[in-house]
C-alpha cells in the first residue's frame, strides 16, 4: 500500500508529535508499505492566520504522486487532518486546543472580539468537515477522544501509540526526580521547582528546551545544586537519565496524551502527576504505577519524599507501569490504522 502520513511541522521545534509521526512512518515501512511523511509548516497566529494554514492542507492534492495513486492518508494533527483524500484516516494527537478547552484561559488565543469568536467557530466548523469526512477517527488517548465527543460530537476509537524508541534500561535510583518536557508554561514544570523550594533535600533534573526556560531558571535561582537544567539532550543521555532517576514528574494541564509516562515506565520508573493532568491519568494510577496528587507544590514535595523513602514501592510501581507500556506496540497500531 502507498501511504502518506500527514503531519504539520513547526520549524525548529521538535516534540512528541514529530517523533510519533516519524515512528509511524518507520513502522509502516517495516510492514512493507511504501510510506512517505508529508508536512507543511504551521504557524497559527495572529488571528485568522490559523485558517490560512488549514487551507494550505486543503489545497494539497494527495490523490496520487508521480502518476501512481496514494492509497491511504493517515493524518495526525490539526491542521494536517484537513487534507482531502477519499481514504483518509485520522489519528488525532491534538486538535487546535486554543479553539476548545484552552479558549478563555491563559493558554487561549482568541479574545472576545467578534472576529476572534468567529475565528474560533471557523476552526470548530473546519474540524467538523475535516474529521467528519474521514473514514475512521482514532484518538491517542481517552482525553482526546472525550474532547472530540464533547466539542465536536465525533466518536473516536481509542488507540494509544508507543513512545519513541530509546535504549531503555533500568538502573538503581540516584534519588533525583526527572522532568522531560518542552519548557512551556502549560507543562507546569514550575510546580516541580516550587516543590524543590519546599523540600531542600529534593533534587530535580529538568531536560528539554522551550520558551519558559528563563522564567524557570529564575525560579530555581538560589536552589544551588538542587536543580539541573540539561537543555536539549540526545537519546542516549535521555535514556540514561531515565534509567537512574527516582521517578519522573509529568503534570501538564489536561494533557492530551504524553509519551513521557510510557518512557518512564519502560525505564522501570514510577510517574508523579496531578489530578488535572488529563491523558497521563489513563496510565498513571495512584499507588499502582506512580503517585497522583493535587496540583500543589507541597503535595508534590511530599509525594517525591515518599518515593525517596520507600524505594521498594517506587520500584514496584515502575515495574507495574512497564507491563502496561509494553502492551502498546507499533504492530497493533498499524493493524488498527490499516484495518
Amino acid at each position: 500500500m502507498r501511504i502518506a502520513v500527514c503531519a504539520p511541522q513547526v520549524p525548529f521545534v521538535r516534540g512528541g508529535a514529530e517523533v510519533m509521526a516519524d515512528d509511524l512512518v518507520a513502522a509502516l515501512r517495516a510492514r512493507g508499505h511504501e510510506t512517505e511523511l508529508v508536512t507543511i509548516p504551521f504557524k497559527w497566529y495572529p488571528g485568522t492566520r490559523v485558517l490560512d494554514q488549514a487551507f494550505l492542507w486543503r489545497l494539497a492534492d494527495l490523490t496520487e504522486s508521480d502518476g501512481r495513486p496514494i492509497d491511504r492518508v493517515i493524518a495526525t494533527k490539526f491542521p494536517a487532518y484537513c487534507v482531502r483524500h477519499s481514504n483518509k484516516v485520522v489519528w488525532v494527537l491534538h486538535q487546535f486546543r486554543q479553539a476548545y478547552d484552552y479558549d478563555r484561559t491563559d493558554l487561549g488565543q482568541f479574545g472576545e472580539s467578534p472576529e476572534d469568536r468567529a475565528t474560533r467557530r471557523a476552526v470548530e466548523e473546519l474540524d467538523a468537515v475535516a474529521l467528519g469526512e474521514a473514514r475512521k477517527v482514532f484518538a491517542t488517548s481517552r482525553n482526546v477522544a472525550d474532547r472530540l465527543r464533547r466539542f465536536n460530537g465525533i466518536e473516536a476509537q481509542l488507540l494509544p501509540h508507543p513512545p519513541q524508541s530509546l535504549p531503555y534500561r533500568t538502573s538503581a535510583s540516584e534519588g533525583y526526580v526527572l522532568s522531560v518536557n518542552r519548557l512551556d508554561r502549560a507543562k507546569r514544570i514550575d510546580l516541580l521547582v516550587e516543590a524543590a523550594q519546599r523540600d531542600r533535600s529534593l533534587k530535580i533534573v529538568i531536560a528539554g528546551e522551550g520558551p519558559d526556560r528563563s522564567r524557570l531558571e529564575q525560579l530555581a535561582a538560589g536552589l544551588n545544586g538542587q536543580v539541573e537544567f540539561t537543555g536539549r539532550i540526545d537519546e542516549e543521555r535521555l535514556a540514561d537519565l531515565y534509567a537512574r532517576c527516582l521517578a519522573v514528574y509529568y503534570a501538564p494541564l489536561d494533557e492530551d496524551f504524553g509519551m513521557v509516562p510510557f518512557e518512564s515506565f519502560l525505564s522501570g520508573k514510577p510517574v508523579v502527576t496531578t489530578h488535572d493532568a488529563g491523558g497521563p491519568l489513563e496510565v498513571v494510577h495512584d499507588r499502582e504505577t506512580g503517585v497522583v496528587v493535587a496540583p500543589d507544590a507541597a503535595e508534590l514535595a511530599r509525594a517525591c519524599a515518599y518515593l525517596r523513602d520507600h524505594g521498594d514501592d517506587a520500584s514496584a510501581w515502575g515495574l507495574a507501569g512497564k507491563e502496561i507500556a509494553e502492551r502498546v506496540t507499533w504492530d497493533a497500531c498499524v493493524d488498527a490504522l490499516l484495518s
Partner: protein
Amino acid sequence: MKVAYYSPLQPSRSGIADYSALLLPALRERIDVVVAEPGKRAPDADIALYHVGNDPDAHGWIVDALYKRPGIVVLHEYVLHHLISGITIGRGDGRGYLDAMERELGVAGRLLGLGVLDNLLPLLWETQPERFPLAAPVLDHAHGVIVHSSFVAARARDEGYQGRIWRIPHPAWPVHDVAPAGDVSGAPLIGCFGFLNMNKRIPELLQAFASLRRRLPGAKLLLAGAAGERFDLSRRLERLGLSGDGVIRLDYLPEERMWSLLAACDVLVNLRFPTMGETSGSAIRAMSLGKALVVSDVGWFAELPDDVVLKVPVDEYEVPLLERALELAAEHSATLGRNAREYVDREHSLSRVADDYVAALEVAAGGDAVDDAVLMRIAEAAAEVGIDDATVLARAAAEAGILS
C-alpha cells in the same frame, strides 16, 4: 460579544414571549445580552437578534428595527402575510403592501394586492396566507436566519435566500414533577391544547373522536384554549353528539394549570394544516412530559421521528386514520411517551439550544470579517503568481468550512 435582543416578552400572551422567557436566561449565562424595548433607542451591540412571528402587534416594532439595522432573524414561522399586511396596510401604507406582494409574485402579486386594497378580493392573510407567505421583505434584511425546522430552511432557500441559515431546535421547558390534574379523567383522556380553529384540524379531530367514542365510550376529549372567532365549536359538538360529557371544554389556562392538565392526559393531539412553518410549543411541552402525541404529517411536525410521535397525513383518509392513531397512541402511550421524552432531552435541551444560538451569533457577528481576511490573503497570494480570479480557491475554502 454583546447581542441586542428583540422579542415580545411576557406578560405578552405569545408563544414567542414564552420562548424568550425560556431562552434569555440561558443566553445570558453565555453572552452579554441587552434586551431592546419598543419605542426606545436601539441598544449598542455587536449584533442584533430579531424574533419574528406573524402577529403585527407583537412583532411590528421588531421588523421596524430590523429594517433600520439588519441582523439575525429568528423565523418562528415562515408565513408572515399577516405581519406584513399589519405593518403596511394597517399603518395606511397600501403601497408597502403592494411592493411586498410584487416582491413575492411579480406583477400578478401587485394586481392581487390591488384587489385586496380595493375590497375586490378577500383578505389574503385570512383566506390563503400560506400561498403568499411574504417572508421576503424580512429575509431581505436578514444577515442570517435561525429556523427551527428543515422545512422553513428549505422554504427560505426556495425563496432565494442566500445568507447563512442555522437550524436550531425549539428548546424544551425543563419539566419538574408535575402532578396530574385530578378533576379530569377519561379512558383514555385525549387532550388538545392551544387556539382552536380550522387550521388546527379541530373539525377532523371532533369527527375522529366521535367515531372513536362509539367504540370506547369511556374516552374523553379535553379541548383547552380559546376558539377562533368564526369557529362555532358548540354547534359542531352538538352536531356530532359530543355536547354531553364526552368533551371537557376549558378556555385560557394559567401556566401551572395547563401543565397539570397536560400531565393528566393519556394522549395529546396537535394537528395542523395548512402549516405556516411554525413549531408548536404545545407539542414540545407534550413530549417533555413524556406523553404520546399525535400530529399532522406536515412541516416541522413531519420532521419528528417516527418512533416518537404518530403522524397522520392530511388527505381524504385523515379522519379514519386519526381515529386509529388516537387509539394506537393510547395503547402504546408508555413507549411513545418514553421515546418522546428521550428525544426532547436529546434534541431540544435548553443548554444545547443556547449553545447553538451562541455559535450562530458568533459566526454572524464576526464571520464576514474572518472571511474577508482569509479571502484577502488567498487572493493576494494568488494574484502575486498571476491568478487574478481566486474564485476556485474561495470555493475550496468554503467547502472546507474555512469560510462561513
